[in-house]
């Protein structure tokens, strides 16, 4: 057996040297995802109501616990190879540009669109990679039924394509102090300056 192994191994090595480097297949087809370089902003007034999910530390998160705050929420998932990183980066830029007074009045939420992968531990690592300040930012997951109810309220459509690969509405939204969605940004790269301007317009409102 061992001599056969040596013979097989040698034959394999020789053969690989001869043919190994010529088996290059044609280039891959481009990804068919849609990439909006800028997000479409729209003013709306949609009551969101209450919901309860799980945050990145595994604790229960009640929307009621941040009642009266302005909420910037986006829908993303951690293994997204598309626009979610842009959305999370925009959220991070907004957070860093809030002044101390605004930070007390504004809360950020990232709601996953892929609960299969995004368990609290994965969300915590994701938050860390983006240097998210978790004092006013929570990354939320939950069971599929609770999450689909939340997606539905925001008008977010989610279609699973493969493990860790999901098509979803790229929504970032601002919820006012009364719990109504007021601004929606549909697209992969929401402009943090526009979001900040909209948030500040709400902060000024008593």
């Amino acid at each position, binding site marked *: *057996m061992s001599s*056969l192994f040596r013979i097989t191994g040698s034959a394999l090595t020789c053969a*690989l040297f001869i043919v190994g480097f010529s*088996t290059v*297949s044609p280039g891959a087809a481009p*990804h068919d995802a849609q990439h909006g370089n800028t997000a479409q902003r729209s003013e709306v007034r949609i009551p969101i109501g209450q919901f309860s999910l799980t945050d990145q530390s595994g604790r229960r998160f009640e929307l009621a616990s941040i009642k009266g705050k302005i909420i910037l929420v986006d829908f993303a998932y951690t293994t997204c190879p598309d626009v979610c990183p842009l959305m999370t980066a925009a959220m991070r830029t907004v957070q860093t540009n809030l002044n101390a007074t605004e930070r007390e009045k504004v809360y950020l939420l990232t709601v996953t669109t892929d609960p299969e992968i995004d368990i609290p531990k*994965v969300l915590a690592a994701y938050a860390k*990679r983006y240097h998210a300040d978790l004092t006013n930012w929570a990354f939320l997951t939950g069971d599929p039924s609770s999450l689909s109810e939340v997606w539905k309220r925001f008008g977010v459509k989610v279609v699973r394509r493969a493990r860790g690969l999901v098509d979803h509405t790229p929504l970032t939204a601002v919820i006012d102090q009364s719990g109504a969605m007021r601004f929606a940004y549909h697209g992969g790269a929401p402009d943090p300056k526009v979001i900040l301007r909209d948030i500040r317009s709400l902060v000024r409102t008593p």
Partner: protein
Amino acid sequence: MSLLELKKIWLVVLIALCSCGRNERMDALYAQRCINCHGPSGRGDGPVAASLPVRLTDFRETVERKSVSQIRRAITEGLGMMPAFAPALRPSEISDLVYMVRFLSREGRNIHWWERFDALVVAHCNIPWEAVFDYDQPQEEKKR
């Protein structure tokens, strides 16, 4: 060693030979998970790249200096805005991406002699050695 066993070994080797080097599985996986940012040739010119706040590097400039384990770590654990793919992909898929990155990094530049061994490593990884040499069978069964 029976003729049947001999045929089995050569069949496995033949499959490995066919699957060494860059293959369609790697291309499909790369197109699915990486191409949006890294672009079709790994030059950092995918459709999402222009909107990123950071400039993506060209694989041809950086991968040459990275070990397989460094590339694997970046793919599994993520790097900055790059997603961590460990929860979503199987180890064999991660390996496919590692070698795809290395194959892309070699396009259009002079490659070092040691980089020529990548196809061998891929082929070696593709051979189910435990099946070829019955590693997974208890000793008693082998004796029988």
